[in-house]
C-alpha cells in the first residue's frame, strides 16, 4: 500500500521529519509541516536558513536525505521534478532566452503527453497572457521586457499548467520597491482568483506578513514557529520570532513568579514587569532568564506626574528623538534603568494630549496585557 499522508483531502504539501544534508551542512533539519490546499504559505527566515532548499525538495530538484515529502497525499520521494504536479517561479526568472514570450509560456503545455493541439496551446497562452496583463507581448523576446514584465512571464509560464501548487522563490527580490508593492497585490489577487496553493520564499518580513495566510519562520534549517501573521505578531514563541516579525522592545530579567497564564519578571535594575506567556511557547521556570517583549504601538507616552494609570507598568524617561511619520510619531525614550525604548504614538492621542520634543521628561506605560514574557534565546 502506498504511503498516505494523514489527511489527503485537505493537505497539499506535507513534510514529515525531512532532513536534507549537503556534504557537511544540514540545510533542512528534521522539518515537519503541512500546507493546506489553496493556502498562501510563506517560508520566512534569514539568508542561508534553508528556505530555498525546502522549496527545491518540493519541486524535486533535490531529494531529502531523510524523511518524507507528500504532494496531494502521495509520497514524492524519488520522483523527478518533471513528473511532479508543481511549478516554480525562479528568483532570476530563468526564462528561456532563445524563445519568445509565447514559446516560453507554452513550454510546459508542449511537454505534455498527449500534447495539446496547436490551436489549444495558442488559445491558452493568450488567456494566460491576458491574466498577467501582457496581451500583445507574445512575440517579444524575453530580454526586451522589463523586470516586472519578465516576472509576469515567469508567473504565466508556471500558472498555465494549472499546477496543484505554485512555488515562488523570492520572486520579487529583483524588483524595485514600488513595483514590488504592486506585484505583491497582484500576486495576492491572482492567488485568490486561480485558487491554487502558493508557497512563497522570502526574507522580507513585511512581504510575508502582508501576503500570506500562514507563515513558517525558519532558522538554521529548523522551523521556529508556524502560524497566521497575526499569531506570529501577537504570540511569538521566542525572542527570535518577536525580533524578526515587526519591531519590539525587549527588557531582560529573571522570572520571579509564575501563574497559570502570567509571569513576573524582575530586571537587573529592579523594575518589575508582568506579562502573559504566549501560547505554544515552552513554559518558563521560576528563576530562569526571560525577556519581556512590548510592541512600540502598545506603549502610551505621557507627561511625568500625569497619574492616570494604576495597574499599568510605568517607567520614567527622557525623550531622545522624535520622528514624525504622518499618521503617527515615533519616539525614542531613554529610561531610568531599562535602556532605550521605542514608542509609536498615534496622531489621535497626540492631539488629545500634547506631543513631546527631545529633552522632555515623560512617563511611558503599558498594561500587562500588552507585554509578553518569552524565553531568552
Amino acid at each position, binding site marked *: 500500500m502506498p504511503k498516505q499522508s494523514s489527511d489527503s483531502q485537505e493537505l497539499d504539501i506535507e513534510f514529515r521529519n525531512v532532513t536534507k544534508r549537503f556534504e557537511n551542512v544540514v540545510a533542512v533539519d528534521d522539518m515537519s509541516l503541512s500546507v493546506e490546499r489553496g493556502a498562501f504559505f510563506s517560508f520566512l527566515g534569514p539568508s542561508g536558513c534553508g528556505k530555498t532548499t525546502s522549496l527545491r525538495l518540493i*519541486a524535486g*530538484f533535490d531529494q531529502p536525505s531523510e524523511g518524507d515529502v507528500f504532494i496531494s497525499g502521495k509520497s514524492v520521494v524519488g520522483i523527478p521534478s*518533471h513528473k511532479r504536479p508543481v511549478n*516554480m517561479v525562479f528568483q532570476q526568472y*530563468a*526564462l528561456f*532566452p532563445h524563445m519568445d514570450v509565447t514559446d516560453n509560456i507554452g513550454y510546459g503545455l508542449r*511537454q505534455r503527453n498527449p500534447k495539446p493541439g496547436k490551436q489549444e496551446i495558442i488559445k491558452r497562452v493568450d488567456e494566460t497572457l491576458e491574466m498577467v496583463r501582457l496581451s500583445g507581448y507574445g512575440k517579444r523576446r524575453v530580454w526586451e521586457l522589463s523586470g516586472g514584465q519578465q516576472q509576469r512571464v515567469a508567473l504565466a509560464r508556471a500558472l498555465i499548467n494549472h499546477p496543484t501548487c505554485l512555488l515562488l522563490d523570492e520572486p520579487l527580490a529583483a524588483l524595485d520597491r514600488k513595483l514590488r508593492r504592486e506585484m505583491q497585490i497582484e500576486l495576492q489577487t491572482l492567488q485568490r482568483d486561480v485558487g491554487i496553493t502558493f508557497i512563497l520564499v522570502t526574507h522580507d518580513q513585511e512581504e510575508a506578513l502582508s501576503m500570506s495566510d500562514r507563515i513558517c519562520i525558519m532558522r538554521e534549517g529548523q522551523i521556529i514557529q508556524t502560524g497566521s501573521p497575526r499569531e506570529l505578531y501577537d504570540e511569538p514563541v521566542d525572542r527570535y520570532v518577536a525580533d524578526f516579525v515587526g519591531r519590539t522592545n525587549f527588557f531582560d530579567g529573571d522570572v520571579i513568579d509564575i501563574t497559570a497564564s502570567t509571569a513576573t519578571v524582575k530586571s537587573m535594575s529592579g523594575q518589575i514587569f508582568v506579562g502573559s506567556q504566549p501560547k505554544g511557547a515552552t513554559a518558563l521556570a521560576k528563576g530562569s532568564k526571560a525577556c519581556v517583549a512590548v510592541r512600540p504601538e502598545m506603549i502610551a507616552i505621557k507627561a511625568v506626574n500625569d497619574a492616570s494609570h494604576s495597574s499599568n507598568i510605568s517607567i520614567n524617561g527622557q525623550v531622545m528623538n522624535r520622528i514624525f511619520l504622518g499618521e503617527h510619531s515615533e519616539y525614542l525614550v531613554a529610561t531610568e534603568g531599562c535602556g532605550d525604548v521605542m514608542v509609536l504614538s498615534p496622531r489621535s492621542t497626540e492631539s488629545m494630549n500634547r506631543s513631546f520634543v527631545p529633552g522632555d521628561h515623560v512617563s511611558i506605560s503599558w498594561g500587562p496585557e500588552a507585554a509578553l514574557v518569552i524565553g531568552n534565546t
Partner: protein
Amino acid sequence: MRIYAIAVFLFLYVPIGIIVLFSFNAGRHASELKGFSIQWYDKALSNPFVGDAFVTSLIVAFSVAILSSLMGTAAALALQRLKGTPKMLFDGLIYVSVMIPGIVIGIATLVALVTVFDFLNPLLASAWPEGSKPPKLHMGYASVIAAHTLFTMSLVIILVRARIAGMDRALIEASMDLYATPWRTFYQVTLPQIYPAILAGFLLSFTFSFDDFIISFFVAGANTTLPIYIFASIRRGITPEVNAIGTMVLVASLVLLLTAQFLLRKRTQR
C-alpha cells in the same frame, strides 16, 4: 621599441604577403613580377594531384570535425558532473593535451598504431577462414583522423565547457520543472544554449586538421593530404602554382577561423 615591433610584424607577414603577391604573378619565376594573372590558380585547380590531395584533406578534415565535435560535446557534458579530484585531474589532462606539440602526437600515434597493428594483424590472419584474404590493418584515413581527433577533441571540450559554465543552471531546472524529460531538456534548452561553442569547435577542428602537416606526415600512410602534397612539390622547387594553393588555403582558413571567433563572441542568442 616601435622599430622592434615593426620588424616582428614584417617578419611575420612579409613572407605571407609575398606568397599571395606572386600567386598572381604572370611570370614563371619568383625573381620578377610580370603583371597580373590568375593562370596559376587555373593550373593548380586543374592539376589532378592537387585535386586528389584536396579531396583527401577535405575527407579527413570533415571526419575529424564531426567526430571531435560529437565526442568533445559528449565529454564536456559528462565532465560537467564531475567534482573534486577527478574533475581537477581531467581538466588538467585536457589542457595538457592541447599543449602537446604536434610532433609528439605524430610520433606517439605512429608508435602506438604500429605496435597495435603488428599485434593484431597475425591474429586476424590466423582467425580468418582459409582461402579468403585476411584484412590487413595499415596506416590510412583512419589513422590520420584518429590522430587529429585526439588533439581537436580537447579543443572542443574546452570551448563547450566554457559555454556550459556560463550558462544559467536554473534554465535546465526550469525545463525539468515544466515537465520536460532529461532528453527533451537537452535538445530544447541545453543544445540551443551551447551550439555556438560546438559549431566554433567544429570549425576550429576542421581548420586544424586541414592545415596540419606534422601529424599527417607521420600517420597518413599512402594518403597525400594537401599540406603533404605542397611539402613534396616544394622539394622540387617553388612554383607559382604552390603560391596559388597556399593563398587559397590561407583564405579558407582565415574565413573559418573568423567565423569561429564570431560564434564564440556571440552571447546567448542576444
